Protein backbone atom coordinates (compact mmCIF):
# COMPACT_ATOMS: atom_id res chain seq x y z
CA UNK A 1 0.00 0.00 0.00
CA UNK A 2 2.50 2.57 -1.19
CA UNK A 3 1.27 6.10 -1.64
CA UNK A 4 2.67 9.53 -2.49
CA UNK A 5 4.10 11.89 0.10
CA UNK A 6 1.62 14.76 0.30
CA UNK A 7 0.23 17.60 2.34
CA UNK A 8 -1.54 15.26 4.77
CA UNK A 9 1.80 13.76 5.60
CA UNK A 10 3.28 17.13 6.43
CA UNK A 11 0.33 17.67 8.75
CA UNK A 12 0.95 14.27 10.30
CA UNK A 13 4.56 15.25 10.99
CA UNK A 14 3.54 18.60 12.45
CA UNK A 15 1.15 16.84 14.81
CA UNK A 16 3.88 14.42 15.80
CA UNK A 17 6.11 17.40 16.59
CA UNK A 18 3.73 18.12 19.48
CA UNK A 19 5.20 15.10 21.21
CA UNK A 20 8.72 16.33 20.61
CA UNK A 21 7.74 19.60 22.28
CA UNK A 22 5.83 17.94 25.10
CA UNK A 23 8.73 15.63 25.86
CA UNK A 24 11.07 18.64 25.87
CA UNK A 25 8.82 20.60 28.22
CA UNK A 26 8.35 17.68 30.60
CA UNK A 27 12.08 17.03 30.72
CA UNK A 28 12.74 20.74 31.22
CA UNK A 29 10.27 21.02 34.11
CA UNK A 30 11.37 17.91 36.00
CA UNK A 31 15.03 18.23 35.01
CA UNK A 32 15.03 21.91 35.95
CA UNK A 33 13.79 21.19 39.46
CA UNK A 34 16.42 18.49 39.95
CA UNK A 35 19.08 20.72 38.38
CA UNK A 36 18.44 23.46 40.92
CA UNK A 37 19.10 21.04 43.76
CA UNK A 38 22.19 19.57 42.06
CA UNK A 39 23.60 23.03 41.25
CA UNK A 40 23.20 24.07 44.88
CA UNK A 41 24.74 20.82 46.16
CA UNK A 42 27.60 21.57 43.78
CA UNK A 43 28.41 24.93 45.41
CA UNK A 44 27.50 24.56 49.10
CA UNK A 45 30.54 24.72 51.37
CA UNK A 46 30.27 21.02 52.23
CA UNK A 47 32.64 18.74 50.34
CA UNK A 48 30.63 15.47 50.34
CA UNK A 49 27.67 17.33 48.80
CA UNK A 50 29.97 18.77 46.12
CA UNK A 51 31.35 15.32 45.33
CA UNK A 52 27.87 13.86 45.10
CA UNK A 53 26.84 16.53 42.61
CA UNK A 54 30.07 16.20 40.60
CA UNK A 55 29.65 12.43 40.48
CA UNK A 56 26.08 12.71 39.30
CA UNK A 57 26.92 15.26 36.60
CA UNK A 58 29.91 13.25 35.35
CA UNK A 59 27.96 10.01 35.29
CA UNK A 60 25.20 11.51 33.16
CA UNK A 61 27.49 13.55 30.93
CA UNK A 62 29.92 10.66 30.51
CA UNK A 63 27.44 8.15 29.10
CA UNK A 64 25.43 8.12 25.86
CA UNK A 65 21.78 9.14 26.02
CA UNK A 66 20.91 6.08 24.00
CA UNK A 67 22.35 3.86 26.72
CA UNK A 68 20.45 5.70 29.44
CA UNK A 69 17.28 5.43 27.41
CA UNK A 70 17.56 1.64 27.13
CA UNK A 71 18.55 1.24 30.77
CA UNK A 72 15.39 2.99 31.90
CA UNK A 73 13.24 1.36 29.24
CA UNK A 74 14.27 -2.12 30.33
CA UNK A 75 15.23 -1.25 33.88
CA UNK A 76 11.72 -0.31 34.96
CA UNK A 77 10.39 -3.70 33.95
CA UNK A 78 13.24 -5.43 35.80
CA UNK A 79 11.87 -3.81 38.95
CA UNK A 80 8.40 -4.99 38.04
CA UNK A 81 6.94 -1.74 36.72
CA UNK A 82 5.69 -2.03 33.22
CA UNK A 83 5.89 1.51 32.01
CA UNK A 84 5.77 2.63 28.43
CA UNK A 85 8.22 4.44 26.21
CA UNK A 86 6.87 7.85 27.33
CA UNK A 87 7.80 7.28 30.99
CA UNK A 88 11.22 5.92 30.08
CA UNK A 89 11.83 8.86 27.75
CA UNK A 90 10.69 11.50 30.26
CA UNK A 91 12.86 9.91 32.94
CA UNK A 92 15.92 9.77 30.71
CA UNK A 93 15.62 13.28 29.34
CA UNK A 94 14.82 14.76 32.75
CA UNK A 95 18.01 13.24 34.09
CA UNK A 96 19.94 14.36 31.02
CA UNK A 97 18.59 17.92 31.37
CA UNK A 98 19.22 18.00 35.11
CA UNK A 99 22.92 17.25 34.71
CA UNK A 100 23.54 19.77 31.93
CA UNK A 101 21.40 22.49 33.49
CA UNK A 102 23.03 21.94 36.87
CA UNK A 103 26.40 22.55 35.27
CA UNK A 104 25.17 25.65 33.41
CA UNK A 105 23.45 27.07 36.48
CA UNK A 106 26.41 26.38 38.72
CA UNK A 107 28.43 28.62 36.43
CA UNK A 108 25.81 31.34 36.80
CA UNK A 109 25.70 31.01 40.58
CA UNK A 110 29.47 31.17 40.80
CA UNK A 111 29.68 34.21 38.56
CA UNK A 112 27.86 36.28 41.19
CA UNK A 113 30.69 38.14 42.98
CA UNK A 114 31.80 36.82 46.35
CA UNK A 115 31.15 40.26 47.83
CA UNK A 116 27.41 39.67 47.38
CA UNK A 117 27.65 36.61 49.62
CA UNK A 118 29.61 38.60 52.15
CA UNK A 119 27.44 41.67 52.26
CA UNK A 120 24.29 39.61 52.66
CA UNK A 121 25.99 37.55 55.37
CA UNK A 122 26.95 40.76 57.12
CA UNK A 123 23.26 41.66 57.29
CA UNK A 124 22.48 38.42 59.12
CA UNK A 125 21.00 36.40 56.24
CA UNK A 126 21.64 32.69 56.65
CA UNK A 127 23.05 30.58 53.82
CA UNK A 128 19.75 29.66 52.23
CA UNK A 129 18.44 33.21 52.54
CA UNK A 130 21.56 34.53 50.81
CA UNK A 131 21.02 32.06 47.99
CA UNK A 132 17.30 32.66 47.73
CA UNK A 133 17.18 36.45 47.91
CA UNK A 134 20.57 37.65 46.73
CA UNK A 135 22.50 35.08 44.69
CA UNK A 136 19.85 33.18 42.71
CA UNK A 137 17.99 36.30 41.50
CA UNK A 138 21.25 37.62 40.06
CA UNK A 139 22.24 34.25 38.61
CA UNK A 140 18.88 33.81 36.88
CA UNK A 141 19.56 36.77 34.61
CA UNK A 142 22.94 35.38 33.63
CA UNK A 143 21.53 31.89 33.16
CA UNK A 144 18.59 32.59 30.89
CA UNK A 145 20.48 32.71 27.54
CA UNK A 146 22.49 29.49 28.02
CA UNK A 147 19.38 27.76 29.35
CA UNK A 148 17.45 28.63 26.20
CA UNK A 149 20.50 27.52 24.23
CA UNK A 150 20.41 24.17 26.01
CA UNK A 151 16.79 23.73 24.99
CA UNK A 152 18.08 23.36 21.42
CA UNK A 153 20.19 20.37 22.48
CA UNK A 154 17.25 18.92 24.35
CA UNK A 155 14.83 19.22 21.42
CA UNK A 156 17.35 17.57 19.10
CA UNK A 157 18.15 14.76 21.50
CA UNK A 158 14.51 13.88 22.10
CA UNK A 159 14.72 12.42 18.57
CA UNK A 160 16.51 9.48 20.21
CA UNK A 161 13.29 8.53 22.01
CA UNK A 162 12.21 7.15 18.63
CA UNK A 163 14.64 4.29 19.19
CA UNK A 164 12.57 2.88 22.06
CA UNK A 165 9.42 3.33 19.98
CA UNK A 166 8.11 6.61 21.35
CA UNK A 167 6.27 8.31 18.51
CA UNK A 168 7.57 11.84 18.27
CA UNK A 169 8.71 13.71 15.19
CA UNK A 170 11.55 11.38 14.14
CA UNK A 171 9.59 8.22 14.75
CA UNK A 172 6.67 9.62 12.80
CA UNK A 173 9.13 10.28 9.98
CA UNK A 174 10.28 6.66 10.01
CA UNK A 175 6.68 5.46 9.96
CA UNK A 176 5.86 7.72 7.03
CA UNK A 177 8.95 6.58 5.21
CA UNK A 178 7.82 2.98 5.53
CA UNK A 179 4.46 3.91 4.06
CA UNK A 180 5.58 6.20 1.26
CA UNK A 181 9.13 5.11 0.41
CA UNK A 182 9.96 8.77 -0.13
CA UNK A 183 12.86 9.07 2.33
CA UNK A 184 14.24 12.31 0.94
CA UNK A 185 10.93 14.18 1.10
CA UNK A 186 10.04 12.74 4.50
CA UNK A 187 13.35 13.32 6.25
CA UNK A 188 13.91 16.75 4.75
CA UNK A 189 10.48 17.75 6.04
CA UNK A 190 11.32 16.31 9.45
CA UNK A 191 14.62 18.18 9.42
CA UNK A 192 12.88 21.39 8.42
CA UNK A 193 10.46 21.15 11.35
CA UNK A 194 13.32 20.56 13.78
CA UNK A 195 15.16 23.44 12.20
CA UNK A 196 12.30 25.88 12.69
CA UNK A 197 11.99 24.96 16.36
CA UNK A 198 15.71 24.91 17.10
CA UNK A 199 16.70 27.92 15.04
CA UNK A 200 14.07 30.06 16.77
CA UNK A 201 15.40 28.97 20.14
CA UNK A 202 19.01 29.62 19.09
CA UNK A 203 18.13 33.09 17.90
CA UNK A 204 16.15 33.82 21.08
CA UNK A 205 19.14 32.74 23.12
CA UNK A 206 21.47 35.03 21.19
CA UNK A 207 19.10 37.95 21.47
CA UNK A 208 18.69 37.45 25.22
CA UNK A 209 22.45 37.27 25.52
CA UNK A 210 22.72 40.67 23.89
CA UNK A 211 20.05 42.15 26.10
CA UNK A 212 21.55 40.85 29.33
CA UNK A 213 24.67 42.87 28.68
CA UNK A 214 22.90 46.19 28.32
CA UNK A 215 20.07 45.89 30.84
CA UNK A 216 20.37 46.03 34.60
Amino acid at each position, binding site marked *: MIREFGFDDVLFLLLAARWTILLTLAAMAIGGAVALVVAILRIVPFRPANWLAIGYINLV*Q*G*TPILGQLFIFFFGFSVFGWNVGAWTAAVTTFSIYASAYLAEIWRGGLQSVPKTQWESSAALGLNYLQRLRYVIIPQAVRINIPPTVGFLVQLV*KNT*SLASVIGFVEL*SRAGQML*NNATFAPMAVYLTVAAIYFVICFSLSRASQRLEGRIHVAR
Partner: protein
Amino acid sequence: MNYSFRFSSLLAYRDEIIEGLLLTLQLSAATILIGLVIGVVIAALRTGGPGPLRSIATVYVETIRNTPLLVQLFIIFFGLPSLGLRFTANEAALIGLSINLGAYSAEIIRAGIESVRKSQIEAGHALGLNGYQVFRHVVLFQALKAIYPALTSQFILLMLMTSIVSTIGANELFHQASFIDSRTFRSFEVYTAITLIYLGLTLLFRGVFAAIYWCVFVRRPAR
Protein backbone atom coordinates in the same frame (compact mmCIF):
# COMPACT_ATOMS: atom_id res chain seq x y z
CA MET B 1 11.66 -8.00 42.70
CA ASN B 2 12.27 -11.54 41.53
CA TYR B 3 14.63 -10.76 38.68
CA SER B 4 18.08 -12.24 38.91
CA PHE B 5 20.82 -10.22 37.29
CA ARG B 6 23.14 -12.23 35.07
CA PHE B 7 25.94 -10.07 33.86
CA SER B 8 28.09 -13.17 33.39
CA SER B 9 26.16 -14.21 30.28
CA LEU B 10 27.74 -11.21 28.54
CA LEU B 11 31.21 -12.66 28.87
CA ALA B 12 30.56 -15.07 26.03
CA TYR B 13 30.29 -12.04 23.76
CA ARG B 14 33.51 -10.29 24.63
CA ASP B 15 34.81 -10.65 21.07
CA GLU B 16 31.80 -8.76 19.77
CA ILE B 17 32.22 -6.13 22.44
CA ILE B 18 35.90 -5.66 21.64
CA GLU B 19 35.16 -5.49 17.94
CA GLY B 20 32.51 -2.80 18.57
CA LEU B 21 34.82 -0.94 20.90
CA LEU B 22 37.54 -0.82 18.25
CA LEU B 23 35.16 0.46 15.63
CA THR B 24 33.86 3.12 18.03
CA LEU B 25 37.44 4.23 18.64
CA GLN B 26 38.30 4.24 14.93
CA LEU B 27 35.12 6.08 14.05
CA SER B 28 35.76 8.65 16.78
CA ALA B 29 39.37 9.21 15.74
CA ALA B 30 38.56 9.50 12.03
CA THR B 31 35.65 11.82 12.73
CA ILE B 32 37.78 14.04 14.94
CA LEU B 33 40.40 14.37 12.20
CA ILE B 34 37.96 15.07 9.37
CA GLY B 35 35.65 17.17 11.53
CA LEU B 36 38.55 19.30 12.69
CA VAL B 37 39.68 19.97 9.13
CA ILE B 38 36.13 20.93 8.15
CA GLY B 39 35.91 23.08 11.26
CA VAL B 40 39.10 25.00 10.48
CA VAL B 41 38.08 25.62 6.88
CA ILE B 42 34.57 26.73 7.79
CA ALA B 43 35.82 28.91 10.64
CA ALA B 44 38.29 30.58 8.27
CA LEU B 45 35.54 31.16 5.72
CA ARG B 46 33.21 32.58 8.34
CA THR B 47 35.77 34.97 9.75
CA GLY B 48 37.57 36.11 6.61
CA GLY B 49 36.14 34.44 3.52
CA PRO B 50 34.57 36.17 0.50
CA GLY B 51 30.87 37.05 0.82
CA PRO B 52 29.13 34.11 -0.90
CA LEU B 53 31.36 31.48 0.68
CA ARG B 54 30.84 33.12 4.02
CA SER B 55 27.07 32.78 3.57
CA ILE B 56 27.35 29.15 2.56
CA ALA B 57 29.50 28.43 5.59
CA THR B 58 26.95 30.12 7.83
CA VAL B 59 24.06 28.14 6.33
CA TYR B 60 26.02 24.92 6.81
CA VAL B 61 26.77 25.63 10.45
CA GLU B 62 23.24 26.75 11.31
CA THR B 63 21.56 23.87 9.49
CA ILE B 64 23.66 21.20 11.12
CA ARG B 65 23.51 22.70 14.59
CA ASN B 66 19.76 23.11 14.53
CA THR B 67 18.77 19.61 13.37
CA PRO B 68 19.28 16.24 15.10
CA LEU B 69 22.17 13.97 14.12
CA LEU B 70 19.69 11.12 13.85
CA VAL B 71 17.78 12.85 11.07
CA GLN B 72 21.03 13.87 9.35
CA LEU B 73 22.05 10.22 9.32
CA PHE B 74 18.66 9.17 7.92
CA ILE B 75 18.98 11.67 5.10
CA ILE B 76 22.47 10.44 4.22
CA PHE B 77 21.78 6.74 4.56
CA PHE B 78 18.14 6.46 3.43
CA GLY B 79 17.61 9.66 1.46
CA LEU B 80 20.70 10.04 -0.71
CA PRO B 81 20.38 6.62 -2.40
CA SER B 82 17.25 7.94 -4.09
CA LEU B 83 19.57 10.44 -5.76
CA GLY B 84 21.92 7.64 -6.71
CA LEU B 85 24.39 8.16 -3.84
CA ARG B 86 24.82 4.90 -1.98
CA PHE B 87 26.97 4.38 1.12
CA THR B 88 27.53 1.50 3.46
CA ALA B 89 26.31 2.07 6.98
CA ASN B 90 29.84 2.68 8.22
CA GLU B 91 30.56 5.16 5.44
CA ALA B 92 27.32 7.02 6.08
CA ALA B 93 28.18 7.07 9.78
CA LEU B 94 31.60 8.59 9.16
CA ILE B 95 30.18 11.18 6.76
CA GLY B 96 27.32 12.15 9.07
CA LEU B 97 29.45 12.39 12.18
CA SER B 98 32.18 14.39 10.41
CA ILE B 99 29.71 16.87 8.95
CA ASN B 100 28.16 17.20 12.39
CA LEU B 101 31.41 17.69 14.27
CA GLY B 102 32.66 20.06 11.57
CA ALA B 103 29.83 22.50 12.29
CA TYR B 104 30.33 22.45 16.04
CA SER B 105 34.10 22.73 15.93
CA ALA B 106 33.85 25.57 13.38
CA GLU B 107 31.90 27.62 15.91
CA ILE B 108 34.36 26.86 18.70
CA ILE B 109 37.36 27.70 16.51
CA ARG B 110 35.76 30.90 15.26
CA ALA B 111 35.12 32.03 18.84
CA GLY B 112 38.75 31.27 19.63
CA ILE B 113 40.09 33.25 16.70
CA GLU B 114 37.88 36.22 17.52
CA SER B 115 38.74 36.20 21.21
CA VAL B 116 42.45 36.51 20.48
CA ARG B 117 42.25 38.79 17.50
CA LYS B 118 40.78 41.72 19.37
CA SER B 119 43.21 41.93 22.21
CA GLN B 120 46.51 40.60 20.93
CA ILE B 121 47.11 41.24 17.27
CA GLU B 122 47.88 44.91 17.69
CA ALA B 123 50.37 44.10 20.38
CA GLY B 124 52.03 41.65 17.99
CA HIS B 125 52.22 44.23 15.23
CA ALA B 126 53.54 46.79 17.67
CA LEU B 127 56.47 44.45 18.30
CA GLY B 128 57.25 44.46 14.58
CA LEU B 129 55.86 41.03 13.65
CA ASN B 130 54.33 40.68 10.20
CA GLY B 131 50.85 39.26 9.51
CA TYR B 132 51.94 35.64 9.23
CA GLN B 133 54.22 35.89 12.25
CA VAL B 134 51.42 37.38 14.29
CA PHE B 135 49.15 34.51 13.30
CA ARG B 136 51.79 31.86 13.89
CA HIS B 137 53.19 33.10 17.18
CA VAL B 138 50.42 35.13 18.75
CA VAL B 139 47.02 34.07 17.46
CA LEU B 140 47.42 30.36 16.82
CA PHE B 141 48.90 29.28 20.10
CA GLN B 142 46.66 31.40 22.27
CA ALA B 143 43.54 30.54 20.27
CA LEU B 144 44.32 26.84 20.51
CA LYS B 145 44.85 27.12 24.22
CA ALA B 146 41.63 29.09 24.67
CA ILE B 147 39.46 26.66 22.70
CA TYR B 148 41.12 23.45 23.84
CA PRO B 149 38.67 22.72 26.69
CA ALA B 150 35.57 23.40 24.58
CA LEU B 151 36.95 21.50 21.61
CA THR B 152 37.89 18.40 23.58
CA SER B 153 34.52 18.41 25.39
CA GLN B 154 32.98 18.41 21.94
CA PHE B 155 35.15 15.44 20.96
CA ILE B 156 33.95 13.48 23.98
CA LEU B 157 30.37 14.37 23.13
CA LEU B 158 31.09 13.15 19.61
CA MET B 159 32.45 9.87 20.91
CA LEU B 160 29.24 9.36 22.89
CA MET B 161 27.19 10.33 19.85
CA THR B 162 28.79 7.61 17.74
CA SER B 163 26.32 5.33 19.52
CA ILE B 164 23.59 6.95 17.43
CA VAL B 165 24.97 5.50 14.21
CA SER B 166 23.86 2.09 15.48
CA THR B 167 20.39 3.17 14.31
CA ILE B 168 21.51 2.89 10.69
CA GLY B 169 23.32 -0.36 11.37
CA ALA B 170 26.94 0.70 11.63
CA ASN B 171 28.40 -2.07 13.77
CA GLU B 172 30.10 -0.05 16.47
CA LEU B 173 29.83 -0.71 20.20
CA PHE B 174 26.20 0.18 20.68
CA HIS B 175 25.14 -1.89 17.70
CA GLN B 176 26.88 -4.86 19.27
CA ALA B 177 24.79 -4.25 22.36
CA SER B 178 21.56 -4.77 20.46
CA PHE B 179 23.05 -7.85 18.83
CA ILE B 180 23.97 -9.36 22.20
CA ASP B 181 20.57 -8.32 23.54
CA SER B 182 18.83 -10.20 20.74
CA ARG B 183 20.83 -13.31 21.59
CA THR B 184 20.69 -13.28 25.38
CA PHE B 185 17.45 -11.44 26.15
CA ARG B 186 19.36 -9.86 29.01
CA SER B 187 18.50 -6.32 27.91
CA PHE B 188 19.02 -4.53 31.19
CA GLU B 189 22.40 -6.09 31.87
CA VAL B 190 23.57 -5.61 28.29
CA TYR B 191 22.74 -1.93 28.12
CA THR B 192 24.03 -1.21 31.61
CA ALA B 193 27.34 -2.89 30.83
CA ILE B 194 27.70 -1.15 27.46
CA THR B 195 26.80 2.23 28.96
CA LEU B 196 29.47 1.76 31.60
CA ILE B 197 32.00 0.92 28.89
CA TYR B 198 31.20 4.30 27.33
CA LEU B 199 31.79 5.89 30.75
CA GLY B 200 35.20 4.24 30.70
CA LEU B 201 35.85 5.64 27.23
CA THR B 202 34.88 9.11 28.43
CA LEU B 203 37.37 8.86 31.27
CA LEU B 204 40.03 7.55 28.89
CA PHE B 205 39.45 10.42 26.45
CA ARG B 206 39.57 12.96 29.28
CA GLY B 207 42.83 11.50 30.50
CA VAL B 208 44.40 11.58 27.03
CA PHE B 209 43.21 15.14 26.38
CA ALA B 210 44.48 16.32 29.76
CA ALA B 211 47.85 14.73 29.07
CA ILE B 212 48.07 16.42 25.67
CA TYR B 213 47.13 19.74 27.25
CA TRP B 214 49.81 19.35 29.82
CA CYS B 215 52.47 18.48 27.25
CA VAL B 216 51.57 21.22 24.79
CA PHE B 217 50.39 24.14 26.88
CA VAL B 218 51.78 23.69 30.36
CA ARG B 219 55.18 22.10 30.10
CA ARG B 220 56.28 23.99 27.03
CA PRO B 221 56.47 27.68 27.82
CA ALA B 222 54.11 29.81 25.70
CA ARG B 223 55.99 31.37 22.83
